[in-house]
Structure formats: structure tokens, C-alpha cells
């Protein structure tokens, strides 16, 4: 696809503003192509559908699909992998020797699972994720973009080069933030993918130490994307003080991804890449508009996940966004597996975050909720702290702040920040631990 004129608001106006009935029609066409393919070639889908007594010939419309198709979740995939000795958990649909790459999921919710990929053969029909989103932020060919990422998902920078931009490559590491500041001032990038609370705090420390003005560092950026987990209130405050326009980004059930647009009113999911449903939370009673997100791949024919339960709690809307895009939006709320119920109170990691980072020694916001079960007697927290702070005093201060924030007195284990940073990339240290 040729690049649109630089003054075009949208990268792909036809698709991004497609009327709802046409989106539905397109999804139905793609879905009815995908189902027989997945049933025939994905061992996991085949077994799941056989066990449910459903055959692709039973599915002639989206309505049939929603009514009859069985769900799949990550545990089913792991079980299939372990019981059958199939490293791909029954998801791979192409002969193994035709694969280009074997990547993996982040592993936030347990051991990473393998993602088989066939480059150039199983991707989206039209550029979608990242391309449409960064164009919408105002990033244009010839611009520099700062990429602050991992490598385990593969060479994401190719998508930015396809957009005609020039990536500047950084590790997702607080120690890279001095270089980030220097090169931002030198190359004046317009886009950043992606940031998190720990890195924002690290930028502040670098600017304090080196005398950079963070407003200047970020002055060229039209959009700064954060992902992996919600931005902490402290980090958001800092970024906003610096004049940074933040865009939230989130995965959609290992099937596709979502980004905020300039309206910052929900995250758009490109519905030509996935069919997304929202289902009632089984144990939530009246969950209101909080639902579990379920996604089905429409373009990934190499490892299509069909009716994949994400465990993500979201709110969604299919109303047209004020930005003019017609594709649905979601608002991430949390993960089903993250909540703990203490003394009748439901607590998610986000609920203790403000309290933890309000204590100076814990400003990085590194902590874990110890979750031995959904219902626990005590709220146990493992909290990271910096420097040579007085541990007893820090523990008391964090405890008092958490009590004010949640109404529950916590039990706190203090550990150095470095011990928590080792547990994973800082945007995604496991916020919940079993012990």
C-alpha cells in the first residue's frame, strides 16, 4: 500500500472510517474464511470444537458463531502443549518447516507460550496496528521515532520503517534513559514506542542529575505510547507536567493490539484484524459494564486463536469516536487473575499503587501483591525501595498510606528495587505473585 498524502488525517481512511454495517460484513466474511481453516489445521481448535459438538458448517453468520462456538483460553493452550508434547499448544496451522519464526508471549501470567509465525504470508492484508496508530498521532515519513522495547516479540522496528520513519533503538531499561534524553535532543523524534512508569521516573532522575529540561527532551514528540500496565499516577503527573501527550496501548487477548487516538477516550481495536466480543464476568454478580474481553483472529492464519478468553476486564463501546474512526474502543480495567478480596474488599494492584509511590523511597512504584488465593485474610505486599532509607520508617509510611488508600492494613515485605527489577522488564514485573 502506498503511503497517503502527509496531510491526510488517517493512514487508511477507507478502513479506519468504515461504517459499522460494513465492518460487520467484512468481519463476517473474514470469520467464515478463518473458521474452516482453523478447524482443519489447528489441532487445538479442532479438538475444542469436536468436544463441543460444533462443526464449521454450523457457522454461517456472526450470530451462529456467537451462539455456538466454544471458547479457548491460555490454560487450554498450555494443557494441550504439555499433554500432547506440541510446543505450539495446538495453534500452529502450517507445516512446521514453513515457519519463519518462533516467538513467544510476554509470560506475564505464567510461563511464556510459543507463537509460531510465517512472515510475509500470514499477516494483515492492510497495514493496521502501529501504522494507522502512529500516523494518527502525526508521525510522518522521514521522522525519527524512539523505540524503547524488548526483542522477544521480534523486530517490531520493521513496522516503523514501513511507515518511512527512522527508528532510534533503545533497550527498555532505566539505564538507557540518559542516552534517550541525549538522542531525543539531537534527533528530535516525533513518536515514542513505548514507555512506562519506571522509565518516566528514570528520565526525571537523569534530568535532575544532568541538568536537562524534560520539557525540552519531549518537545518534539507528538505522541508517547505507554503499555504493559497502567501508568502510575505519579508518572502520569510528571509526564503531563512536561507537556507529554500520552497514548495508552494494550494487547487484545494475544490476538491483536489497541491504541488510544488523539481523543484519549478509549483504545481503538482495528476490527479488520480481530472479532472482539465482551462476555459477562461469571463471578461478578452485576458486573455493570465491566466484561471479559474475548478475541478471534481474522487475519493471522498461521496461529489463529478462535474465541480466545483474555482474562482481561474491560469496558467497550462501538459508538463512533470523536476522532472520526468507527472501530470499537475499549477501556482496560484489570485482569481477572489479579484481584484479591481482603476483609470483603476487592483490591487490584492499581488500588495500592498511589500509596506505595507516595513514599519517596518507593517512588519507582515497584511492588507486588502476594496472592495465595482470590480471598485472603491479609493484604500482603512486597515493596521495592531505593537508596539507604530507614527500612522501619519506610515500612510504616507505606503501611499507613495503603491503609488510607484501601481501608486495609497491609503486611509489607521491603526489598531493594533491584530485586524486583530482576523479575522482568520493568513495565511488566509481575504485579501479583503467589509467594
Amino acid at each position: 500500500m502506498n503511503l497517503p498524502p502527509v496531510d491526510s488525517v488517517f493512514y487508511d481512511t477507507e478502513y479506519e472510517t468504515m461504517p459499522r454495517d460494513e465492518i460487520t460484513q467484512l468481519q463476517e466474511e473474514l470469520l467464515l474464511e478463518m473458521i474452516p481453516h482453523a478447524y482443519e489445521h489447528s489441532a487445538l481448535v479442532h479438538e475444542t470444537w469436536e468436544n463441543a459438538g460444533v462443526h464449521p458448517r454450523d457457522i454461517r453468520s456472526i450470530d451462529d458463531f456467537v451462539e455456538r462456538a466454544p471458547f479457548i483460553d491460555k490454560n487450554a493452550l498450555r494443557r494441550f502443549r504439555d499433554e500432547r508434547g506440541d510446543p505450539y499448544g495446538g495453534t500452529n496451522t502450517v507445516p512446521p518447516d514453513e515457519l519463519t519464526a518462533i516467538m513467544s508471549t510476554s509470560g506475564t501470567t505464567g510461563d511464556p507460550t510459543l507463537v509460531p509465525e510465517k512472515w510475509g504470508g500470514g499477516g494483515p492484508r492492510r497495514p493496521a496496528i502501529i501504522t494507522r496508530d502512529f500516523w494518527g498521532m502525526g508521525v510522518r515519513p522521514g521522522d525519527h521515532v524512539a523505540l524503547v522495547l524488548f526483542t522477544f516479540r521480534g523486530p517490531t522496528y520493521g513496522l516503523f520503517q514501513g511507515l518511512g520513519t527512522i527508528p532510534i533503538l533503545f533497550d527498555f531499561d532505566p539505564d538507557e534513559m540518559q542516552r534517550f534524553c541525549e538522542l531525543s535532543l539531537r534527533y528530535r523524534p516525533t513518536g515514542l514506542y513505548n514507555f512506562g512508569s519506571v522509565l518516566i521516573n528514570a528520565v526525571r532522575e537523569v534530568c535532575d542529575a544532568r541538568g536537562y529540561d524534560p520539557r525540552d527532551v519531549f518537545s518534539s514528540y507528538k505522541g508517547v505510547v505507554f503499555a504493559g500496565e497502567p501508568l502510575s499516577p505519579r508518572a502520569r503527573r510528571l509526564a503531563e507536567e512536561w507537556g507529554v501527550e500520552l497514548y495508552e496501548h494494550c494487547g487484545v487477548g494475544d490476538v491483536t493490539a489497541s491504541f488510544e487516538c488523539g481523543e484519549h477516550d478509549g483504545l481503538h481495536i482495528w476490527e479488520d484484524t480481530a472479532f472482539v466480543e465482551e462476555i459477562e464476568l461469571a463471578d461478578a454478580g452485576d458486573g455493570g459494564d465491566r466484561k471479559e474481553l474475548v478475541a478471534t483472529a481474522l487475519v493471522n492464519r498461521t496461529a489463529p486463536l478462535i474465541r480466545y478468553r483474555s482474562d482481561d476486564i474491560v469496558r467497550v463501546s462501538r459508538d463512533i469516536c470523536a476522532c472520526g474512526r468507527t472501530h470499537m474502543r475499549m477501556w482496560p480495567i484489570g485482569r481477572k487473575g489479579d484481584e484479591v478480596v481482603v476483609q470483603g474488599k476487592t483490591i487490584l494492584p492499581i488500588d495500592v499503587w498511589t500509596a506505595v509511590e507516595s513514599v519517596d523511597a518507593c517512588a519507582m512504584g515497584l511492588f507486588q501483591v502476594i496472592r495465595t488465593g482470590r480471598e485472603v485474610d491479609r493484604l500482603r505486599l512486597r515493596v521495592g525501595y531505593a537508596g539507604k532509607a530507614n527500612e522501619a520508617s519506610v515500612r510504616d509510611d507505606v503501611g499507613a498510606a495503603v491503609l488510607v488508600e484501601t481501608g486495609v492494613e497491609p503486611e509489607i515485605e521491603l526489598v531493594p528495587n533491584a530485586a524486583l527489577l530482576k523479575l522482568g522488564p520493568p513495565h511488566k514485573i509481575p504485579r501479583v505473585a503467589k509467594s
Partner: protein
Amino acid sequence: MTPWGVGSYEGPGGREPWEISHEEIQRDMGTASKTLAELGVGPGQRVLFCSMLSEAGQFWPLIVGAMLSGAQLSCADATESEAVRVAMFTRLIEYRAVLGVTPAILDGLDALGHPYADVFAGIEVIGARPGAYERLRAAGLSPRRFVLCGPAVAIADAPDAPALVSASEWEIAGDGDRVVVTGRRERATTFERTHTAVRGDVVGNGVVWRT
């Protein structure tokens, strides 16, 4: 030249930005394909790259080279926390080569209680960086030297052998105990006896580092 991106390389004073063109990346892909073929990585074989995004200028040609040669590739970060991913990959998938193993990954394997001999069992080519090479040898394995000499990738063609850079693209030499690198062909960034972070002895187009 058309800009490809801004990578980085390790100099004596730390990480230096490295402007890279599409033209040189294209040439480096060809070189990488040849190198991988010499390591036996070809159609039907698999290779796991352990690297950081800041090293993409050095690793992207290898990644595409693997793809062009019909091999399959996997990626993990070269960090302590990624040891779990490296161990998962080698447990589930049969690899011909694992390239770029760092001391940090070995620290992570130690923390997980995974013996190196188990994690890397049956892998013909283990490309290990300074610090990791010595630890793997001490564990009874036969790794090959793998080191980034500034912008140039150096991989040994046999256990015990020096790590080799592409002689058509790079000239390396010693300056005191430092390895310096000179680009033989046009690049977006000029390398002329540029000092790298690597300390060691240069033998032809090979390097034996000192730790």
C-alpha cells in the same frame, strides 16, 4: 544513502549512537547469511538470538540472514529475567544455534537452578559473549566466541577459535589492549580505527578477548 535507523555500539566510554543506512544493512544481510551457513544454520535449522534492541543494527542482518537461508529464528532479550524464556525455548524447540549468550542470562539460569548443560544440551553452536564463554566452558560445554566489536559482529567458526568479523566489511586491529575497527566500505557512519569496548588480541580478522 537511505537511513535505516540509529543503533548503537559499545565504545570505551560507553554506548555510542550509530547511524545506519539501508545500503549497508543490505550488504550485512548477505554477509550474515554466509556466516550462518558456515555455522550450519540453513533450511530446516533453528537459531535463537539473545540480544537487546539497542543491538538491532548488529543483529537485524543476522535475523534476516536466517530468514533468507530458510532457517527459523527466535528472539530473547539478553537479560537475567529472560533466562526463563531462553530455558523455555531450548526445552520446547530443537535449535542448531543459540547466539549472543550473556553473563546476565547465565545469572538468570543460576537463579532458576537450571544447569547450563541441561539448558544448552544438544545445541551444536553456542555463541557466547565475554564472561559467558568462560563460564560455559567451565561447565564442560564447548561454546564459540561471540562478541560485538563495536558495530561489527564477530563469531568463531569453531570452539576455541578467535571470533571472526567479516573481512570484506571490517578491518580490526589492536591499539594497546583495545580492539579498534575500520569500515572497509561506505557506511552512514565512518569507522576509522574506532575504539571499541573490547579488550583483547587481534589475530587476522579474529579477536580473542581478555576478560
